[in-house]
């Protein structure tokens, strides 16, 4: 869409400056859009996850059309199942959005101790992710490696209901899986850092299963915080400068722990619509760029006026973030979102997102 005011920066300049904590011309528009891009260009939704070249193309074209910043990304929330030996299904039906589990690598207690760390050069979607990152490198967009968070990977290795029961009754099993998930994250980031150089890599960690809809803050403190601190410190030790955490869903009670996560300088924290932007700034604003948090449900089913009003409120709140802010959906933009509602987000940036 044509800019209402003259942009003073290219997308790359804007994101580079944002990550360095420098001033930028307007609030960036972060692309938490995957399946929507396939729909937007007429591709089957599954190619976003199964065909890196077409996924790249679909995202790049869609970003161009709606004025997204950053660059295309590759990843999905059920990460971990396929990589540890389970099976996932690519989205096929009209109501599917992303890959889903078919079989989990672990079903029994004995299975936990038989688990082995996968070879990150061959496991699951990682070869596809690596192919995608080569495109990111070639085109000069951020090399973003996306995982489920430590707890989310654990909940994708064994069914999350089972993991929750083990946290109470057999915590040693839960700890064993979480340690494997943590080691796997570190292994994979090391592979990326070795390939592209640590400074070029941005690790992006989506943590939906650790939300308070599933676990308590006390469980977060015991089963998430130490593992994420361990992987975070090791990732930063490889020269990675930024870790991007997607704090998905209802995690207000976890925020005091998120402040203790290593995230680099600067970190990036995106939040679900359940957390107020002002609350996120209060907890995380001094060490991270805040990103968020238009409710995906409203994006898909709400009228454009509601989307626009919500964006205005969120942009105005986000612009107060001391280390910067990006507008995005509170979780992945649903594939069936009316295109005009996505256009409304960009329009709101044009109307309210400029820094004077």
């Amino acid at each position, binding site marked *: 869409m044509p800019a209402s005011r003259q942009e003073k920066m290219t997308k790359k300049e804007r994101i580079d400056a944002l990550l360095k904590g420098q001033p930028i011309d307007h609030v960036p528009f972060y692309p938490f859009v995957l399946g929507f891009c396939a729909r937007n*260009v*007429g591709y089957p939704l599954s190619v976003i996850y199964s065909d890196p070249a077409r996924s790249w193309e679909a995202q790049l074209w869609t970003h161009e*059309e709606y004025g997204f910043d950053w660059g295309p990304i590759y990843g999905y929330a059920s990460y971990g199942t396929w990589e540890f030996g389970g099976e996932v299904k690519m989205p096929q039906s009209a109501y599917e959005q992303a890959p889903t589990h078919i079989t989990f690598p672990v079903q029994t207690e004995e299975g936990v101790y038989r688990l082995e760390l996968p070879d990150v050069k061959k496991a699951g979607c990682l070869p596809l992710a690596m192919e995608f990152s080569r495109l990111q490198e070639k085109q000069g967009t951020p090399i973003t490696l996306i995982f489920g968070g430590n707890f989310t990977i654990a909940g994708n290795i064994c069914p999350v209901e089972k993991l929750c029961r083990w946290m109470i009754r057999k915590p040693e099993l839960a700890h064993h899986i979480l340690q494997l998930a943590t080691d796997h994250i570190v292994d994979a980031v090391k592979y990326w850092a070795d390939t592209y150089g640590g400074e070029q890599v941005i690790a992006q960690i989506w943590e939906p299963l650790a939300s308070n809809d599933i676990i308590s803050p006390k469980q977060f403190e015991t089963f998430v915080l130490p593992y994420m601190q361990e992987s975070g410190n090791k990732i930063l030790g490889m020269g990675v400068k930024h870790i991007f955490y997607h704090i998905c869903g209802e995690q207000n009670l976890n925020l005091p722990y998120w402040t203790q996560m290593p995230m680099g300088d600067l970190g990036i924290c995106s939040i679900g619509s359940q957390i107020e932007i002002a609350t996120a700034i209060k907890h995380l604003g001094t060490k991270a760029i805040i990103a968020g948090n238009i409710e995906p449900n409203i994006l898909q089913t709400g009228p*454009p006026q509601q989307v626009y009003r919500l964006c205005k409120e969120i942009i105005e709140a986000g612009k107060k973030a001391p280390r910067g802010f990006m507008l995005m959906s509170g979780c992945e933009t649903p594939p069936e979102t009316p*295109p*005009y*509602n996505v*256009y409304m987000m960009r329009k709101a940036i044009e109307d309210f997102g400029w820094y004077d």
Partner: protein
Amino acid sequence: MTERERLEALLNRQQVDRVAFFPIHGSFAAAMVGYSKVDVYENPEMAFWARLRTQEMFGQVERVSYSGGAFGAREFGSEVKMPTSEYSMTISLLKAAVQSEEDVWKLKVPDVKTAGVLPMMMRFSKLQAEYGLPISFNSGGILTIAGYIAGVERMCRWMIRRPELVHKLCRIVTDFLVAIAEYWVETFGPERMIPGTLAPTEANQIISPKQFEEFCLPYQKEVHEKLFGLGVKHIFTHVCGEQNLNLPLWAQIPMGDPGIVSFGNEVDLETASKYFPNDIIMGNVEPAVIQTGTPEQVYELSRICLQKGKKHPSGFFLGPGCDIPPKSPPYNVWTMRKAINDFGWYN
């Protein structure tokens, strides 16, 4: 220039900075805003906002129109089918009002204030007036409307075997269209009117140029002349489908000062330019390619249209060759706009 200024300038035969992007979208607009296809035909408010928002999103000229879908069918008592299935695009004819020769002789011009979709069309026009947009209503095509009254196959048989019946149908359609024009002009004044003559059934895939000359030309000409007599200045005419052999006949119909004449992809824009040197021409990226082609194909077709259309002395709009199919990828439509950015500027 703003989109509004660009349209105004073209209609006043003034220079514009670049080619404007002309919207033709009904059910595609529904998909862009999350409405059902039925909504944009049966609810004037939703029809208006879907089209206006889609026009805004793709940076198209500020002109939206509403033809009701299968226009003529319900107004004369035909039964229609709503576009409820995955593969339907617009309202279609289910059972024609005229089934026999006797039915033709019994036909009367309906009350244009109450018949069929006309009350919805009037509501739509009131929204156009409220938002300062050009006001539209239907001004043809004669045979397209007659086909919705009697069924196209039956009408075609009668053209050969009982031409007097088709002439009677065309006479009634002509009087009906003039009555609509009088009602609209009486309500809004003629100044901001851009009525639409939409003529798919007139295509040479259905009728011969000789049949066009006999059954369409005199009646369509009469409607347009009466509109100009009422003070209307511009008519949008969509010469739909394969009509190369009809072009010398269409050129005998006054289109306005200037008119806007849009063509299907079957007509070369350089040919169109020769027949309509004093009108704005519009077209004509193939809708099937917009729906199923690659963005590169759409971009290339748009580039070729722009290259040819920009040479036309009275102005050019880039647009689809017909209604944009509802399942067209939005990016393909955006690609047309991108081609304008890259090739559409006048030096």
